[in-house]
């Protein structure tokens, strides 16, 4: 919980020495409480006071890093429960589940299969970031280690589920440089697993029969000095799991219970085993509400396309619009002589317009100029989309690359037609309909 200025004032030396730059200790304390000045500006604070303050000003949810190098991901660190309150900061990461109970052919097929989904969408690479490797005791340690080796060789970050300390230690010996997660601490083995995880320098996952047991184990591990944790909230059924995920996050952020302030693991693969469609529904559900690592049985394009799209949307900063790169986007196999259409770089506009153009089947080039990430009318009102900006973009970036001299402009800025004709004398300027949904008909009639 944040401290008030008065509470901070009580910890200052109250000497009004001005060394911090503030006229009095009281003024200094007020500034610290507002976050305007860092507490370290006062040279006379006691160690004890500094520790108390650092604790009090720490964020409600810890930021946990997993993986290494290019495959390093940040989980947690959230400060709000709803994106409109500020923004979400760490998107969930998706894992495909392997188990040492599977036969070699299945393992190989899954490892090969997860490489298939790898594409870019609005500047973000979409792929399966994590591999979840479950230990099945009856299939023995050797087989497990063999799978861990294979999985580590893919370069993806691993999440190891293993409650046997000896096996976990052996598995970490293989892959600890990749900074995997060891999901293995329970009420029964917390001390031993803590030693294994801290020695290897990896994040430790905590699970338990219910939230009380999980909370107990978290408190115990924190007592042992380990705050590099994640919580496996997967319960016996969907309802319990959703309750755990929400309550854990809410206790941390709304109620300020720091012991709950850790990212979560949700094993959708276990909750809806062999039901691909229910896994899709649950993956979306936990992407929306408080899953940090979401484990699926498989990831094909039919799951990835909607799921990664959802994640990209939900985890954008509400204060920053999503934009696409300015440039020429050929659609339906367009070449340099195909019809040109232009609109703004606001991602939503781009997607709606390009979708309709694709549906029309007419080959055309979509020209996207920099309009500050605003929609057509807003950009026009703000002067970010004008005859000047369009003409400049065409002159500098389009004219030499395309031979077509017909340009279709958005219906909502039909007023630009005259100006554009004056600025681009060798171009024919055509006004499109007001709504993107009318584009298919419009293009078919033109063609």
């Amino acid at each position, binding site marked *: 919980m944040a401290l008030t200025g008065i509470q901070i004032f009580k910890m200052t030396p109250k000497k009004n020495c001005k060394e911090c730059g503030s006229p009095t200790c009281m003024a200094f304390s007020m500034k610290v409480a507002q976050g305007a000045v860092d507490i370290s500006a006062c040279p006379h604070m006691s160690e004890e006071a500094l520790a108390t303050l650092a604790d009090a000003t720490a964020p409600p949810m810890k930021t946990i890093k997993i993986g290494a190098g290019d495959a390093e991901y940040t989980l947690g660190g959230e400060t709000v429960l709803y994106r409109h309150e500020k923004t979400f900061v760490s998107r969930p990461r998706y894992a495909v589940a392997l188990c040492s109970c599977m036969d070699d052919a299945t393992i190989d097929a899954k490892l090969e299969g997860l490489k298939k989904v790898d594409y870019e969408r609005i500047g973000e690479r979409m792929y399966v970031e994590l591999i979840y490797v479950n230990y099945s005791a009856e299939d023995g340690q050797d087989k497990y280690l063999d799978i861990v080796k294979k999985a580590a060789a893919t370069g993806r970050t691993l999440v190891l589920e293993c409650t046997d300390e000896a096996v976990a230690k052996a598995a970490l010996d293989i892959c600890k440089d990749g900074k995997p997660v060891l999901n293995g601490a329970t009420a029964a083995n917390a001390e031993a697993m803590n030693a294994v995880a801290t020695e290897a320098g990896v994040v430790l996952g905590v699970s338990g029969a219910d939230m009380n047991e999980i909370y107990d184990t978290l408190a115990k591990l924190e007592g042992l000095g380990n705050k590099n944790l994640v919580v496996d909230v997967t319960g016996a059924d969907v309802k319990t799991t959703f309750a755990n995920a929400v309550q854990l996050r809410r206790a941390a952020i709304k109620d300020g219970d720091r012991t709950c302030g850790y990212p979560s693991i949700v094993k959708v693969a276990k909750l809806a085993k062999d039901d691909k*469609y229910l896994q899709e529904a649950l993956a979306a559900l936990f992407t929306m509400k408080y899953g940090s690592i979401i484990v699926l049985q498989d990831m094909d394009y039919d799951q990835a396309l909607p799921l990664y799209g959802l994640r990209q949307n939900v985890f954008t900063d509400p204060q920053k619009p999503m934009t696409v790169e300015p440039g020429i986007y050929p659609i339906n196999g367009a070449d340099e002589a195909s019809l040109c259409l232009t609109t703004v770089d606001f991602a939503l506009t781009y997607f709606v317009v390009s979708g309709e153009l694709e549906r029309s089947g007419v080959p055309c080039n979509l020209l996207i100029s920099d309009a500050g990430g605003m929609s057509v009318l807003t950009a026009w009102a703000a002067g970010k989309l004008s005859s000047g900006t369009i003409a400049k973009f065409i002159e500098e970036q389009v004219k030499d690359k395309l031979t077509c001299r017909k340009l279709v402009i958005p219906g909502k800025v039909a007023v630009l037609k005259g100006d554009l004709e004056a600025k681009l004398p060798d171009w024919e300027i055509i006004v499109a309909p007001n709504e993107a949904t009318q584009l298919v008909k419009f293009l078919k009639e033109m063609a």
Partner: protein
Amino acid sequence: MPFNQKPQKFSAKINTVTIGTGDKAIALGGESVLPFYTFDGDIENAPKVGVEITDNGIDDTVPGIKAYYDGCASVADMAKKASEMEGVDFVVLTLVGGDPNGDNKSVEDLVAIVKDVVAAVDCPLVVKGCSNVEKDAALLPKVAEACQGTNALIMSAKEENYKAVGASVGLAYGLNMGAESAVDINLAKQLNVISTQLGVKADKIMMDVGTAAVGYGYEYVVSAMDRIRGAALSQDDATLQMPIITPVANDSWNVKEAVASEEDFPEWGPREERGIGMEIMTAASDLVSGSNAVILRHPQSVATIAKMIKELV
């Protein structure tokens, strides 16, 4: 040390709206907790799932949908078949053919179809307009007349035509009215305010606050619904306490991921599976954001979302 659970129960409540009559009537809303937060309090009425057909029938380019309705000769047959789908609570008839920019079917033709459908199904019925405000203003009052006594929900009342639609649907025939706005808390509130001023009862209004397919500006949907539910429950804003119904199918099946053919994108796999994925994920996200009902098309999506709701409530 036990986990200190602090339930978040609100004193305010979402209105309860009943659609349909008799045994199969459904109640929507009534909860005073956030969506699926059963750990905070009871969810009086589980969210419901509807299946959509249109006056032009079904989307027969999708094999699973085509196969399900195999043998149906008329829209009424399809409606009956739709009402028997696993997991379905209500049937939605969208009068898409009325659009003046499309088939431009006459009001009489469309009302005749509505009458056939009313006669064919015994489950709650929802009728959507053609999305052209002028045409809907003429069409929906006639539809309301045809639905008299069924306690149906007539959607597509927008700010531009709520007077014509509300006066007939809500005042003359006492049916439920679906107030449609475009992903914005203020627009949704405004339409509820003017509709109730017109005389439509608050417990006869469902909100259709709009959606987008996931990946297509869905962040606006999340935030609009989060804020609407927040205002209704934590600020007790009576003008936003109407239950929400969300048409998911149309947006989901019209984005590139659900339209592009497998020939054009071989690595993406079958189009049908992508469409189902879009529909399921959009519906699941809408429900956890605050929708009390979703409108879907594919039998697989309907069964899956019904199952998810059952598991969560």
